[in-house]
């Protein structure tokens, strides 16, 4: 496989749990609890899991919006956790983000051209004219006419705003874009436009994506590889096709069973997994999925399973294998 753009090892993030109703300190939230993955050049890694499993926290760590409690982030072979000065700037230029909500992620008082130019002004020493050129070029890349440059975000629809956010993320010499649920807030008929646009940009520019989502079909459609996250840990990862053909971890299976059918003939019976995701403050002992797992065994509540190679490539952390 091509070279690794980004690799994280043993990544952890703990937050102090906010004092309860009566001001008592309540321990630690293990939002990200030991995560390893790599993203290759021109590749999309899908990160899927239920609310609160630590997807956004993982992306904040990568974007250096939060310092990790433990672990390392390697960018093009170099640990960036200790970087400063020009090297840090180069990293910030190369790694960009697009959030879920195109209505709150773009500053309402800035014109589109200034929104897109901002990272260029902060992270590069380009001249005004060069910046203007670059803005026009990325607007064209995302399929927006250049005469939208002087408009404000509220003059756009949700889908167009998301295009502006993607244009901004592409403005610098971007190698990796973190896409945190980029289509979840969009109308169904507009989602396909954005997904196709993202796929097209990757083919033409070779940019890598970390695509965070909770809709299996969408994540599987856009991703080359998928990592499944549960309560701060990756429990299984594999090539997208291999994972869809044969999900192995009981939690991955549960996600597939819970996925909505694409045709009425694919309706299936009641789902096997019961209960709800436990709080990241009280991570169950042993396998963190064991209280909900339909295949749980005595060992599961005592020993935490580690990632092992799985059939068809990738890894799975489960005592069944």
């Amino acid at each position: 496989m091509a070279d690794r753009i980004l690799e994280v090892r043993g990544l952890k993030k703990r937050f102090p749990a906010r004092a309860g109703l009566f001001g008592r300190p309540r321990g630690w939230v293990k939002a990200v609890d030991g995560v390893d993955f790599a993203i290759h050049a021109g590749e999309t890694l899908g990160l899927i899991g239920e609310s609160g499993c630590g997807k956004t926290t993982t992306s904040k760590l990568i974007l250096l919006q939060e310092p990790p409690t433990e672990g390392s982030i390697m960018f093009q072979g170099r640990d960036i956790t200790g970087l400063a000065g020009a090297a840090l700037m180069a990293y910030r230029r190369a790694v960009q983000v697009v959030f879920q909500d195109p209505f709150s992620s773009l500053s309402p008082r800035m014109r589109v051209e200034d929104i897109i130019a901002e990272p260029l002004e902060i992270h590069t020493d380009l001249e005004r004219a060069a910046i203007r050129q670059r803005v026009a070029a990325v607007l064209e890349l995302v399929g927006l006419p250049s005469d939208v440059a002087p408009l404000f975000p509220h003059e756009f629809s949700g889908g167009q705003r998301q295009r502006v956010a993607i244009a901004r993320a592409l403005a610098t010499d971007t190698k990796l874009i973190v896409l945190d649920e980029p289509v979840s807030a969009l109308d169904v008929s507009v989602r396909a436009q954005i997904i196709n646009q993202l796929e097209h940009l990757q083919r033409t520019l070779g940019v890598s994506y970390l695509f965070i989502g909770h809709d299996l079909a969408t994540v599987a459609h856009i991703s080359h590889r998928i990592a499944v996250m549960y309560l701060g840990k990756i429990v299984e990862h594999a090539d997208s096709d291999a994972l869809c053909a044969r999900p192995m971890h009981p939690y991955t299976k549960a996600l597939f069973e819970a996925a909505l059918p694409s045709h009425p003939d694919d309706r299936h019976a009641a789902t096997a997994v019961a209960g709800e995701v436990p709080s990241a403050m009280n991570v169950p002992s042993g396998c963190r999925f064991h209280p909900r797992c339909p295949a749980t065994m005595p060992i599961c509540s005592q020993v935490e399973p580690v990632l092992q190679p799985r059939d068809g490539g990738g890894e799975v952390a489960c005592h069944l294998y």
Partner: protein
Amino acid sequence: MSFALRAGETLGLVGESGSGKTTTCMSIVGLLPRAARIVGGSVLFEGEELTTKSQRELRAIRGRRIAMILQDPMASLNPLFTIFRQVAEPAFFHQRLRGRSLRSRVQHLLKAVRIPSPEWRMREYPHQMSGGMRQRIVGAIALAGGPSLVIADEPTTNLDVTIQAQYLDLLKDIQRETGVALIFVTHNLGIVAKMCDRVAVMYAGKIVEQAPVRELFDDPKHPYTRALLGSVPKLGNKDPLYAIPGQPPNLASLPSGCAFHPRCPEALPRCADEEPIDFHPGAGHAARCWRLDEHAAASHGRSHS
């Protein structure tokens, strides 16, 4: 606009934001205009003409026989009252239950929506529940009056996938047990595929196609329905998605003729000027599209050849 729904059946009302789904629901529950036939036959609701009812009579029907489940459970729950009080209210007013029979009815309802240890949980407040539990409690409140129709407006949008699946399966179980009719308002065709017997697709405030669910998925007649089906990613299929060009229209300034014509890949010249009427390509199947006008299609074909 009119649609029919029998006891124990589920109708999906599909559309994007601003397509008028919620307004349509509100008109069923609230004002009930023109021709909202919601139960089979020529009657309006269980044989009663709702359009001539007073607001007070409507309120009674709304609470007891038509209930709603909204997207955000916190909008339906009062944070200051216990779960017991909120689930008990419809049973107190509509079924006039009191004391022990009221308590056991509430416990029964909470058990029906799979709330663990209901006798203890019913003393708690909404903030002590997870999102999935809150939505199930709203379900219990909706069922409390023993309704014959429940309208669920995007009830699972804020839930996780596994919790969503549990909730949808639960609604189906309850439907099987009680025979309640469901109207599912959603933008998600997966929910339609999983839950519905019939589907009505809305665009720009109008139902543009209506059909039994299999027929709609296998043989959609309206270009918007076809486009919508083609735009959704499917597991195990990596073909490029069909991207519908443009944006959903603004209800305040609708395009002339067929509201979909500016985005329609199959538009005919007349689509820009004339609003299409309902055509009936099959039993129980209706679609508003000039492409279905066989007359015109035949003469068009001749004039072009």
